[in-house]
């Protein structure tokens, strides 16, 4: 009996890797296309630049991965990123030392996420609604602080923005290192800690997770807190990159983050996906941008069109993978 059943089970085990493998294949194909068509594309620095330009998005998307894995969604991330840049710029201009300002905004981001998580859990309100409210709230707060951009002159910001770290003959920024650390920590937490596994369990079946005696509430609030914290880290990285706080920063970033997570193979219904997939998702988005830049004659809006098309393909792929019941 076992022998007859074995192939089916193996198929189930392999199935969970199908979306991420799909992303990987796509990535290789896109990279190949780039190398064949554009001179200088093979230069590894091109790849690294993708991470330099998207380090903040990567961090935000990692937080989003936690939320989506539980079957939730966090629409507030873009606004929280913007609010972080605003608060940070204001504090610095008020003469706060850099470390204090950074800690303050990180705590603020985590707290915002925590509060939204509490509302979602204790009042049993849809995450979509709660984080939509959070999105308006945070964006509104930005404008309360100032309606225009605030530049950051703190020396630490200046040096961090210009700092380059050599990797062989190539260079990256400190932001990439930070984003890399966030990715590694997130991957370890999701794969090897009780908290991480509970995240997957909730995404698989929240009611079962509750009946199994797992800390569903604690974990749910936890993922929104993490997402808030990641948004704040993302905001800091963005302020390094932009050297300013601006209420117009990161508009629509929540959608880019969701797109990266989904293209990275995480199921929107929760329970399946990897941080590594999100890294691949970000790389795909970045590669599209890069290819369009290299092409030279396409409007940058084509990036959006490609991302839209890809999203369709990936959501359909997920559907196909999930649909087949045993």
């Amino acid at each position, binding site marked *: 009996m076992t022998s007859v059943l074995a192939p089916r*089970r193996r198929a189930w085990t392999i199935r969970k890797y199908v979306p991420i493998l799909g992303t990987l294949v796509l990535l290789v194909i896109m990279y190949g296309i780039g190398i064949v068509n554009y001179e200088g594309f093979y230069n590894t620095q091109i790849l690294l630049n993708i991470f330099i330009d998207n380090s903040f998005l990567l961090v935000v998307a990692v937080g989003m991965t936690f939320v989506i894995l539980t079957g939730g969604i966090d629409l507030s991330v873009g606004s929280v990123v913007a609010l972080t840049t605003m608060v940070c710029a204001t504090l610095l201009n008020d003469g706060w030392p850099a470390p204090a300002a950074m800690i303050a905004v990180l705590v603020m981001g985590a707290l915002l996420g925590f509060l939204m998580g509490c509302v979602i859990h204790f009042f049993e309100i849809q995450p979509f609604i709660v984080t939509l409210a959070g999105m308006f709230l945070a964006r509104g707060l930005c404008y309360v602080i100032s309606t225009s951009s605030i530049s950051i002159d703190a020396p630490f910001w200046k040096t961090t923005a210009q700092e380059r770290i050599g990797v062989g003959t190539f260079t990256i920024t400190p932001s990439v290192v930070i984003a890399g650390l966030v990715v590694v920590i997130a991957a370890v937490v999701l794969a090897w800690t009780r908290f991480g596994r509970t995240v997957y369990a909730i995404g698989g079946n929240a009611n079962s997770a509750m009946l199994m*005696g797992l800390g569903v509430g604690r974990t749910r609030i936890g993922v929104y807190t993490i997402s808030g914290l990641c948004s704040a880290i993302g905001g800091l990285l963005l302020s390094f990159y932009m050297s300013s706080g601006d209420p117009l920063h990161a508009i629509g970033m929540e959608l880019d983050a969701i797109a990266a997570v989904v293209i990275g193979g995480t199921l929107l219904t929760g329970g399946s996906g990897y941080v590594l997939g999100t890294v691949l998702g970000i790389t795909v988005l970045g590669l599209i941008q890069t290819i369009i830049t290299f092409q030279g004659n396409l409007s940058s809006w084509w990036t959006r069109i490609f991302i839209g098309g890809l999203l369709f393909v990936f959501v359909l792929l997920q559907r196909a993978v999930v649909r087949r019941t045993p």
Partner: protein
Amino acid sequence: MAETTPILEMRGIGKRFPGVTALDGVDFRLHPGEVHALMGENGAGKSTLIKILTGVYDIDDGAIELDGEPVLFSGPQQAQHAGVSTVYQEINLCPNLSVAENIYIGREPRRFGMISFRAMRAKAAELLGSLGIDIDPGSVLAGHSIAVQQMVAIARAVDISARVLILDEPTSSLDAGEVAQLFRVIRDLREQGLAIVFVTHFLDQVYEISDRITVLRNGRLVGEFRTAELSQRDLVEKMIGKELSALESIEEQAKPQLRDPSPLLVAEGVGRTGAIAPFSLTIHAGEVVGLAGLLGSGRSELARLLFGADKADSGELRVDGRPVTMRGPRSAMERDIAYLSENRRTEGLIEELTVRENIILALQANRGWARPVPRRQQDELVAKYVEALRIRPADPQTVVRNLSGGNQQKVLLARWLITEPRLLILDEPTRGIDVGAKADIQRLVVSLAGDGLAVLFISAELEEVLRLSHTIVVLRDRAVVAQVENTDAVDANSIMNTIATGVTA
């Protein structure tokens, strides 16, 4: 058994849901080292009592004492910490995780704060082995059959249980061998002084394993009895609250004489690699064909091929003498074939809809959405089946989510009966259904067959198959090994023999 002080006492428990009093003044006590059966009809309040105990539901009246200390758990997590572990009636596992994780999640072996998956798989393999299950602990749960999932849930609870183990219908989809394994483990745990609550609708199992019985009826306590002092007959009477005579008539009722000679469905060499070896089978109008075999012998797989839920990769299927390709359930339904699947939880009910809406669903789908079933007709049909199957509460406007497990089953059965199919495939139709309703369903099958309905009847209970079927098809290791006419000479023993050896006795 010496009188010990109870480890658990629930007194005067009351629970009201909007419109229903699920429990009213129920007392329940549990001693260490005993197996205590909780009995009652569908909707009597068994699962509710358990969920109150473990804090899934808030308590309206009454008090709970564990070890003499008043307790009120805020949820299963707290209950588990206090040493009370539960397998709820609905399988409560996460389909996306591995078998090992499902057993150990929340209690994973860790090194330096990191989960050690290797140690976890090793422990899981050992635990599953002790329950006689041979599966890869690293495999994803969703790939396993319902029976295996149920065993995994039991393994989890058994491993957690420190003082009290609660099993709400754990055996409903297990075969005899697995039940025997489970009972062996339960006896071991009883020896170690655990208190075990056991809910089931299988009376034989109650008498085999339990020391004491508490009977509920309509949310009220009927009484607590020692199993040895309560006859099976008395037990049933206490559960249904009336004389047993009505139940017994099914025993003597003769099978209606076959047979309309026209074959309704003919399968020739139909099979699917990996699921079931090619088989041939003929079902006539008015005939009840029973499938017998152990779990995993391919019973459901056979049914799924006939219904088109899976695609056959060999052979030919004829309905009314005309060859058909089953492209999916739709093609089957167009030919008046209905299928009550074994996976009711996932493939059947829409929990947010009412009883009436759920029952009418398939009929409406058959007619197409442009021609709604008139409300009057809906009400009549629904009322008829609510009555015939004793769906409780008998109000068709109840949301299905709020029905007890057994009553949800009946709603699904009603859905298919109402479409008036010519061939009805019933995969474990009486699983989780109480003795009274079980007899009702059996009687219904007999009378429908008398009216010319062909039935393919799958049940783990051999007696049931023997009582109802004209023809018995025996499966073993995913192949049909015998087809026998159900004459007086055939009995449970001879079928068991065929199942075990693969040759007709």
